[in-house]
């Protein structure tokens, strides 16, 4: 009796829950009748979740078979919990897709929390928003109203940072070191996110900061730039394979950091040394690849192909573009498939040991 009732009960529950268990291996599209989970690696409400949910809402109609897409957030350890989950725990059946803000520095510095190498995950696509740098205008006597004012006059200001190992802090410090010298500014790190730094800029606790375009459009532009509190100085450039350094199409009138460097040092001048090499490395990784779409290491090739195709199509979808622009305040810059894979492999598979040693030392110096 006990066994019979228990079996009936189990069967009932299994029947309710397992609608997606059985799959048929016929010629139907791979994702036909399936439910796909897009897994975010930061908590709900953040930029990763917002951007991921926009993709999730529009991608289904471009995947052959039109599966049901659901977005889930799994925050923790600066995005590493979900990254490990995708590589180690999620079934590699193509039904779990990572939508991650990645952390390549964690791999370079051999962070104990990251248990997977990014090149081992299957790259689908990536989107990257440009990053701008701004400073309070009253950070120097007479005011800062141009990049020239900045590199000529700004001394003794404070740069607001998150933690010494974050890409945000590292790029900020490296670019300032190269442009005005480490002795002319101070890093104040330890803020718990960008919001407290925005407040600290208002309070004049720190004066210099960098943020991506959603932060710029949502907070910096309306509450700081337009009222005349801050001057936006430059954007980090996008290095290309053929050796060019590009402005983002979203910010065509804002000079790049390298352009400002040349304003100061002459039009043919180029930075050099390990600091520049490291900054270029971080820019290559971050200015083209930021929000990453990955499949687990052994996911079926059919899933990879279907998703890559879908991402190539969605970025031409007018409804998606309108929704993206409304929420993120920028056009999406998306890289799909082999192009992104090549950047990951060329940068992360053979990192110069000298640069790793430098980076470790540099991180340590930032904590003092």
């Amino acid at each position: 009796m006990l066994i019979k009732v228990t079996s009936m009960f189990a069967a009932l529950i299994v029947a309710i829950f397992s609608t997606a268990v059985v799959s048929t291996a016929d010629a139907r599209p791979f994702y036909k009748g399936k439910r796909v989970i897009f897994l975010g690696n930061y908590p709900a409400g953040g930029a990763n979740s917002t951007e991921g949910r926009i993709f999730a809402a529009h991608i289904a109609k471009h995947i052959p078979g039109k599966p049901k897409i659901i977005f889930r957030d799994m925050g923790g350890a600066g995005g590493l919990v979900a990254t490990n989950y995708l590589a180690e725990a999620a079934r590699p059946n193509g039904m779990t897709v990572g939508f991650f803000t990645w952390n390549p520095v964690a791999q370079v510095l051999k962070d104990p929390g990251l248990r997977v190498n990014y090149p081992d995950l299957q790259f689908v696509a990536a989107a990257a928003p440009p990053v701008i740098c701004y400073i309070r205008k009253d950070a120097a006597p007479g005011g800062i109203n141009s990049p020239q004012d900045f590199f000529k006059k700004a001394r003794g200001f404070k740069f607001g940072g998150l933690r010494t190992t974050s890409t945000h802090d590292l790029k900020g410090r490296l670019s300032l070191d190269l442009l005005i010298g480490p002795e002319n500014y101070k890093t104040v790190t330890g803020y718990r996110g960008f919001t407290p730094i925005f407040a600290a800029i208002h309070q004049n606790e720190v004066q210099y900061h960098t943020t991506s375009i959603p932060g710029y459009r949502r907070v910096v532009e309306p509450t700081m730039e337009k009222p005349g509190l801050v001057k936006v100085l430059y954007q980090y450039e996008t290095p290309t394979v053929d050796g060019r350094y590009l402005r983002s199409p979203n910010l065509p009138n804002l000079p790049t950091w390298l352009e400002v460097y040349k304003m100061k040092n002459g039009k043919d001048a180029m930075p050099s040394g390990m600091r520049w090499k490291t900054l270029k490395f971080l820019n290559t990784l971050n200015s083209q690849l930021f929000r990453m779409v990955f499949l687990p290491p052994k996911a079926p090739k059919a899933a990879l192909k279907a998703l890559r195709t879908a991402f190539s199509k969605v970025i031409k979808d007018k409804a998606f573009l309108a929704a993206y622009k409304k929420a993120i305040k920028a056009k999406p810059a998306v890289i799909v498939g082999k192009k992104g894979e090549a950047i990951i492999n060329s940068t992360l598979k053979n990192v110069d040991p000298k640069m790793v040693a430098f980076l470790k030392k540099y991180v340590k110096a930032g904590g003092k």
Partner: protein
Amino acid sequence: MLEAVLNGLWLVVQWPAIGYLVLGVLIGLYFGAIPGLSGLVGLAILLPFTFLMDPAPAFAFLLGMFAVTTTSDTLASVLLGVPGTAASQATILDGYPLAMKGEADRAFGAAFTVSALGGVLGAVALAVSIPVVKPLIFSFAKPEFFALGVLGLTMIGSLSGGNMVKGLFAALIGLLISMVGYSLTGGVPRYWLGATYLLEGIPIVPMVLGLFAVPEVIELAVRNTSISRVPRDSVSGGMKQGIGDAFKNWWLFLRSSAIGIYIGMLPGLGGVIVDWIAYGHAVQSAKDKSQFGKGDIRGVIAPESANNAMKGGALMPTVAFGIPGSPAMAILLGAFVIQGFMPGMQMLTTKLDVTFSMVWTLAIANVLGAVLLLIWAKQIAKITFLPSHLIVPAVVLFVMMGAWMSSNTLSDWWSMLAFGIIGYWMKQGGVPRPPLILGFVLGPIMESALYVTYQAYGPISWIFRPICLVILILAIMTIAVTALRARRQSKEGSTVKIQETQNEDQLAGFVFIFLMVAVFFLAGWQSLGWDRATGQFPIVVCVPAVLLGLLALYRDGLGIKNVYQTSKNGLRTLAARSVVIKELPGASLLLGSLACIVGITVLFGQAIAIPLFILGYLIVRGKTTWHFALSYAVISGLILYFMFGELIGILWYPSIFIDYG
């Protein structure tokens, strides 16, 4: 200005905005009532639905939902001793004892009344402070945050009752736990035991559910009583009395609401500490403190006024400066932008009517939510008189799923169970739990503030910033007054004690403190190997913790020694008096069953594991009929599927045998 106020009202009351507001309120009541859910989860889920709406209905929907989660969260706090959301943790201290006295509906009457009025006050504060909001918000920089943290810690005096030493010790445990994970200063992970889950720190929801809910579940299961320890017909008063209590304590309500509004305004503080500070203030300012912790209605009024008022305050920096004080406000900021509004001058000038529509939404939603709950509360309160074997399965379901929603991993459950054991041990051993939570929530705020302050302002000069100085003087005065009162009460023999258990288990308390002293010693020792910035805060915490722990051990040791020497069979007498030893078989059985849920989940997923537990519990422990147990289990399965799977859309565990997709 008046035109903007009226236009704002018109935006909210016209169709379809008013319909969305009502719908938002209903959804918000649900999200607040279920432990583990919150306004944040609700906003994240509802936000995509607003993409295609006009601004007024979109804000009415989102804010209507968000406004009332801190009203309905009282249900779980009072009925089950489980915080419905992080903002109602302090409510359980007196709310649950009121339920145990059969006065749950009185607690509801008071809580819903002050929640409604507090929410309206918060909205009014938002309206009137719009022109002068900047200095109010930006006068608090990192040094002031640190000073406020110090002032917050002085509340421990109010939360530890008669045992300041154990209260401080518990707060230091909270501070130590808050240091688990990456340090704020560098990439150095601290006390993470090799578990990636711990790298970003222990999530608060599984911890709080473990500390407060699991011990109550164990007690209900082991002692097999209803939540109310008195029969229904012996209780008088009820909801009307509670509403009367709210008006009788109007001055406390006003002060607590003001605390809520101001804390809400300061980015980075918010919901997690506002209830504690309001509760601490209620205890500190009360002349008769003897009933706090035993079911004093003022212990419900203060946190519930503050946590609803806070929301109006939290909207100020979001609207005026685009600086969201919490993740929930960050989502709202996203909604502004999606609707084409920019925070800042636009919201205070050309779009002032939209800002006022938010004020009206907050006010209307708070009143509507409270009225709906007041209508239902009398029926809901009857749960407290049901036999425990009917309550335990439902509580287990919601507690387990509440913890699960933190990061959707089994680690959430292990974390909850570990803290369940710690919470049960602390409760029986007479080590107060509330200071631990206060230390935990204040820890990261204080460490970050201190570190940034040190870099930005230098080691000393920040102390002399005017607001800092005032707060620090207030903190010193609070400590002095608490010490003097304690001394006076000790002389008079009228020590106030926030009572967590009827019979304190001296032996369990002694062993717990002994083990924790060892943990502090090891943690301090380990931190010596870290760089100064990473190891500084652990040392500041561990050294006094070891000293305080030794002092507590000395005091408790004297008591134990006394029992040992005065009774014939010293050890046996101690063991016989130990509640933990007495309840060990029952408690182990329940904890073992919860661990079984984890095991079965690995094999078949939650949808099988939890209903199976419920079926087994009702038949074996509750001795109910098969039909009843099966129906209960099937309904639980359906709740899991529809409420958690479909409505909230949780990520199910990828079990070995069943793929839930």
